[in-house]
């Protein structure tokens, strides 16, 4: 075809000639160009930068490859675009393999890309970096989101292949260690077509199971992983759908992918990364010996605590009884003090003392009375003497001596001072200075003169 296109001598015979000029029709020249281009560039590598990328609804990628001075239209048809792992975007420097194709109706040519890889870095590596950046921005690796792996889980869910090495390693650890564990396996494809969907679905299934299961049937922790393999074999664990399933899992997830050196995005999203499936098993399945030691420690603690509590109470009892004793002694001392005081008071209040006191008082009083009496007696004697003296002066007897007489009514023995009180016949007695005269009244005169 190329030869045909450039061999003008051959063409002259078939193409229309006018004025010695060879004139192509548009279709002819396009066909020739097509022939030349498509034959020359049937299998080529082209390096350039992706620009003007337009994915179509049907799954084809339309874009241009460009460098400083040229532009090449390119397309990746659906069948090939499916295999692209990395994020296709403008500005990415890539190396494409494919063929040049001319589209006559538009008079355009473009590179039909069969393979494309990022320049300088492997395609998978780039995809990983791109997804990592994206998920990191969204916070899928954030430490705050990491949940605690339960200590001593009762039920462990495992997402891996029943035919794989991982489950064997896990069961081996189980046999070596404390077997009191319920393991529920959700067997999935761990590599190849459909693996990522199955892994993601299995994680979701476990979460769904937990929502409807009774509390003692719920899975406490998930181990998601597989045994070792090539980067491609492990790739499902770098897939976005798997990362999101792990991130969205309400059950804490331990990732256990491949060997120590293999770090997948699942490892970054998971709540805990175990270097291998065996390590994951060791994390969730405790050593019998450790548990035995723990039980012993707790039992010792139990005994010690009880002893301490008992000792504490015993101390309290001792303290209380001591205080009781001291308190009692004190009370007794206090009371005896009081008693002594009361006794003293009582002694003071004793009737003997009172008697004594009254005796004293009485004798005092008696003495006082005697003194007083003596005094009064003396005084009275003196007064009496005086009176006697006075009386001696006033005595009617003395008056009688001077010639007067006193008349008594014999009947009443009353002294008569009023003649009116006498009537004739009354016997009167008149006392003279010496002797007495008895008379009978014959006449009474009230003018002051008696009629005897």
């Amino acid at each position, binding site marked *: 075809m190329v030869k045909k296109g450039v061999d003008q001598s051959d063409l002259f015979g078939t193409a229309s000639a006018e004025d010695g000029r060879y004139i192509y029709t548009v279709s002819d020249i396009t066909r020739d160009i097509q022939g030349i281009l498509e034959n020359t560039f049937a299998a080529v590598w082209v390096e350039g930068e992706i620009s003007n990328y337009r994915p179509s609804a049907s799954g084809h990628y339309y874009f241009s490859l460009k460098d400083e001075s040229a532009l090449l239209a390119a397309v990746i048809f659906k069948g090939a675009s499916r295999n692209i792992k990395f994020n296709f975007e403008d500005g990415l420097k890539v190396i494409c393999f494919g063929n040049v194709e001319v589209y006559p109706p538009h008079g355009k040519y473009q590179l039909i890309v069969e393979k494309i890889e990022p320049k300088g870095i492997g395609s998978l590596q780039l995809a990983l970096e791109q997804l990592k950046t994206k998920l990191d921005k969204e916070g899928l690796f954030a430490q705050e989101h990491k949940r605690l792996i339960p200590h*001593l*889980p*009762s039920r462990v*869910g495992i997402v891996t292949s*029943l035919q794989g090495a991982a*489950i*064997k390693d896990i*069961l081996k650890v*189980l*046999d070596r260690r*404390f*077997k*009191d*564990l*319920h*393991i*529920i*396996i*959700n*067997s999935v494809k761990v590599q190849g077509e459909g693996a990522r969907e199955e892994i993601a679905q*299995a994680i979701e*299934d*476990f979460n*769904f*199971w937990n929502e*409807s299961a009774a509390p003692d*049937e719920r899975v406490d922790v998930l181990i998601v992983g597989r045994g070792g393999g090539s980067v491609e074999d492990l790739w499902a664990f770098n897939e976005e759908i798997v990362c999101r399933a792990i991130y969205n899992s309400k059950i804490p997830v331990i990732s256990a992918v491949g060997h120590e050196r293999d770090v997948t995005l699942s490892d970054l999203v998971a709540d805990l990364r175990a270097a291998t499936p065996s390590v994951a098993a060791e994390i969730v399945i405790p050593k*019998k010996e450790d*548990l*035995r030691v*723990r*039980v012993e420690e*707790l*039992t010792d*603690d*139990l*005994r010690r*605590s*009880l002893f*301490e*509590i*008992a000792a*504490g*109470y015993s101390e309290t009892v001792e303290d209380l009884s001591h205080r009781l004793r001291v308190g009692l002694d004190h009370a007794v001392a206090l009371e005896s003090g009081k008693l002594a005081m009361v006794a003293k008071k009582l002694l003071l209040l004793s009737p003997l003392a009172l008697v004594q006191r009254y005796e004293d008082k009485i004798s005092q009083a008696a003495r006082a009375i005697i003194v007083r009496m003596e005094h009064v007696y003396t005084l009275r004697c003196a007064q009496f003497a005086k009176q006697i003296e006075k009386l001696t002066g006033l005595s009617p007897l003395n008056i009688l001596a001077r010639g007067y007489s006193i008349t008594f009514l014999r009947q009443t023995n009353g002294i008569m001072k009023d003649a009116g009180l006498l009537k004739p016949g009354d016997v009167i007695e008149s006392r003279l200075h010496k002797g007495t005269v008895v008379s009978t009244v014959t006449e009474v005169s009230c003018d002051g003169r008696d009629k005897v």
Partner: protein
Amino acid sequence: MAEIKFEEALKKLEKIVDDLERGDLSLDEALKKYQEGIELSGQCSARLAGAKKKIEILVKNNKGDLEVKPVDEKVSEE
């Protein structure tokens, strides 16, 4: 009580030790807890001696509901 899971018994035992260590229990309560703790300790030891593993698989039945089925251990250990 015989069927108590090891980890449940251990958790209870830890709780009892915590309670006792806080030391604000009456002597009667403390003795009761101690008694319970010693029983749990015995159960833990018994479980450690005679633990059994149980392996099942999570599958979807015809209706699409999830269920767990026992797995032939030989298959998984081959």
